[in-house]
């Protein structure tokens, strides 16, 4: 409490934002301490969506656990599947055949595109623009339709398997994806024309929520959060896995580290995803999609760490086995949880109305933060 000359006392106002608040993109809760309209302190609270996925991995066999990763980050389930299956394959010494790797690349880049489209719509909703939400959801639904045609589910695909895929993709499906790429490319260009030079949008996002390069690294930020601050770190390029071993993925960076840079990185990444889809569709060849896998899968007494570059950053799985069909320990590295660690650096000193915009630019998914 501060008393001024006239003897009027001032104290901080505590605002509880969430867990049921649309701007927190799920069940995230943060307690804001405000002096007037500016934020002086923030305490994040999480765990409202904790479902014990790491314990479940110890209680289910390796094969039984296969549908669970879809529920970690439900907006980009293919990456979760790839992280779990990839870690298990590394531990078991299985390698998927080439066609399966190409198809994994295709479904992952489609999924990245759908995730970034959802982020774009909801982020602009946070800023106050309502109509882009309807446009991006229209395009996102087209991608989900494609994935549904392939896997049978909109969000929780369960498409990847140990040593391959659940089933092959038909040629007609690949043709549909190929036909869709020019459309999506023109739509992304259209969004940029609508949004980039909008005066109000620029004023709301530029020089807001700045994270410098050193802080970004020391706090373990990954994905667009890290790349918007400068470091050109992308696991697809620097720790390649699967099909990314055969190509050189372009890395998108900005160096301002503000909300505007994060927006630009994600928008450019959509173009990169479309370019990669072109390359994958060009390179895919007929062949088997499943390697020979033992009937009884038992994890050896060893441990490994395997990570993929998800839409939000480094999604890793640490997997330790003990010679049984169950994992001895499985640890998920959720990118959103690490990205949330800089929340007070992002928010303190800004206005309450900016808090919503900055949190939107972090792009959190609570299914993944809480697991």
């Amino acid at each position: 409490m501060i008393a001024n000359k006239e003897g009027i006392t001032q104290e901080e106002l505590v605002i509880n934002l969430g867990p049921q608040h649309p701007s927190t993109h799920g069940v995230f809760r943060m307690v804001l301490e405000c002096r007037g309209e500016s934020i002086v302190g923030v305490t994040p609270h999480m765990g409202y969506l904790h479902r014990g996925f790491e314990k479940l991995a110890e209680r289910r066999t390796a094969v039984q656990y296969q549908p669970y990763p879809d529920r970690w980050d439900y907006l980009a389930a293919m990456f979760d599947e790839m992280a779990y299956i990839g870690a298990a394959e590394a531990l078991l010494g299985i390698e998927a055949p080439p066609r399966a790797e190409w198809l994994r690349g295709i479904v992952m880049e489609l999924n990245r595109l759908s995730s970034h489209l959802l982020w774009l719509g909801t982020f602009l909703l946070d800023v106050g623009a309502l109509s882009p939400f309807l446009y991006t959801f229209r395009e996102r639904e087209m991608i989900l339709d494609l994935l549904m045609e392939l896997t049978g589910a909109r969000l929780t695909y369960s498409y990847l398997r140990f040593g391959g895929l659940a089933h092959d993709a038909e040629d007609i499906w690949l043709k549909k994806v190929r036909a869709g790429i020019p459309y999506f490319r023109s739509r992304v260009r259209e969004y940029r024309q609508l949004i980039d030079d909008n005066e109000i949008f620029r004023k709301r996002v530029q020089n807001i929520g700045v994270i410098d390069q050193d802080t970004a690294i020391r706090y373990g930020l990954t994905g667009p959060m890290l790349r918007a601050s400068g470091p050109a770190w992308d696991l697809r390029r620097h720790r390649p896995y699967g099909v990314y071993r055969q190509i050189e993925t372009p890395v998108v960076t900005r160096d301002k580290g503000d909300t505007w840079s994060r927006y630009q990185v994600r928008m450019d990444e959509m173009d990169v995803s479309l370019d990669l889809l072109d390359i994958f569709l060009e390179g895919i060849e007929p062949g088997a999609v499943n390697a020979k896998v033992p009937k009884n899968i038992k994890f050896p007494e060893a441990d490994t760490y395997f990570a993929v570059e998800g839409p939000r950053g480094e999604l890793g799985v640490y997997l330790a086995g003990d010679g049984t069909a169950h994992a001895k320990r499985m640890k998920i590295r959720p990118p959103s949880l690490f990205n949330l660690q800089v929340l007070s650096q992002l928010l303190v000193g800004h206005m309450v109305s900016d808090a919503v915009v900055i949190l939107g630019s972090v792009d959190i998914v609570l299914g993944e933060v809480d697991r």
Partner: protein
Amino acid sequence: MNKEVVLAEKLVESAQKCVAEGYTFPVVHTAVDHKDSLELIYIFRDVRDMDRGERVLSVQLDPDHPVVDSLTPLIPGLVFQEREVYDLFGVVYEGHPDLRRLLLPEGFVGHPLRKDYTKTQGDVVQ
């Protein structure tokens, strides 16, 4: 995985060496319950030099008295990871700025990722 086995007392020293060599990026930190011991795993990376591999530190703790020095003052990106390991394994990090449960409710009893944890322990005390 190539691990450098480190004594609990020497952990801060080894981590300081990692940071001095440029391994400032915390990839992941977790614990593994081996029943007779509790293993802490730290993975660090040098993001500025793409070609250098990850450094993995491994620390063995007494499962009955899991106490270790916190690395959060050195590498702030471990703040939530150490809270999570405290929450789920009961490891006490000395020197951690804010050691509270991360995912489970405040009144939760027990540490569910320990192998000796039973369902009946998991009651929330109001």
